[in-house]
């Protein structure tokens, strides 16, 4: 399941990103009431950008160790400098 989600995200990123980049280009450098929604929507992530967050990650390695020990299962750990689900 994890792999399928990762693969789906990768395909979406590969196919959609160039299109999304082109569609998002705009020139308004100042924030005004008139372009507020445009800037907000430009910055906020699209649903496909958040696909990886739909996976029910344990947010700490230790929680995963506790669960895996209890269930006698292996752990898949994604580890980064900065938390992969937050500021990485």
């Amino acid at each position: 399941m994890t792999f399928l989600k990762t693969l789906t995200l990768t395909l979406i990123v590969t196919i959609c990103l160039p299109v999304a980049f082109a569609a998002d280009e705009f020139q308004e450098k100042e924030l005004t009431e008139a372009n507020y929604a445009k800037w907000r929507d430009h910055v906020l992530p699209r649903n496909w950008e958040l696909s990886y967050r739909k996976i029910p990650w344990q947010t700490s390695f230790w929680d995963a160790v506790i669960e895996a020990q209890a269930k006698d299962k292996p752990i898949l750990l994604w580890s980064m400098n900065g938390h992969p689900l937050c500021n990485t």
Partner: protein
Amino acid sequence: MAADACDRMQRKSCQDEDALLFRKFAGERTSTKGNRGGNQGHYAVTPSGELLASSSNTDPKALAELMKQALEKWAELPREKRLLSKAPDPKSAENWRRMEALYPEDGLALRVVARDQKRERWPDSNLDYAWFRKDEARAFFSAEPTKDAQHEVPSELVRRLARFHLIDNVHALNYTFFPKEAIEKARLTSTVVRVDGDLVSLSFEGESRASMVSPKKIGYAPKLLGRAKYNLKDQKFVSFELVAVGLRWGLGSCNQRHNPAPAPMGIVLTLTGDSPAERLPPAFISRYGW
């Protein structure tokens, strides 16, 4: 499946139980293709810390192969090698997860997303969180919220935003936050737009400017606009948006910014969701002074 930061765990001086386990396999690669250095990556391990497979290759095919290899190896391992001899103690984590306990259950938790105006290369946005305690959240608008009532959000809260949240982490985490003296301007004014029973509708307007020259010559000077709704009876925000747009300049620390030239960057703060990931602490929570 777990996602976690390796910064603390990889430090050799760290004696936390999760770190001791992590360092049994950190940095090892069973796949030889497409790896980066360091300890970042994907690891398939047993609860006892036995490495099954690992890679830092971001290709999904490599990840699929990693999992396949890991399951084959897992099937061959006897139970006593797979598991720890003693069940791991959940309370151990209290030593290194103190910041998570500061989550403002009755306050305001915001997701902070940053993105350049010009989207140049992936990843082109990042997110962090910003927390406000209950009394701090209530200080975002007038004590007597009547229509058109204006209110200056306390300076210390706006400055905290400017120092730790209005920063350039678009391409990667930024270890550089703005020191107090870097904040040249930090103002946010709220206006009560409407009061419908217990529901107070607000607008926000403001600006900030942070600039420093050492150890990094960086800065960000955004204009701020926003809107929110606060339920007086429940004493919490039911919606919240704050948009910051302005020029950023300079290179941060580890943030993968390669062009120091001034360019527009936007940052948007909205209410967090309710998944466990949305309760992760802000990157600079330890600097809040809580």
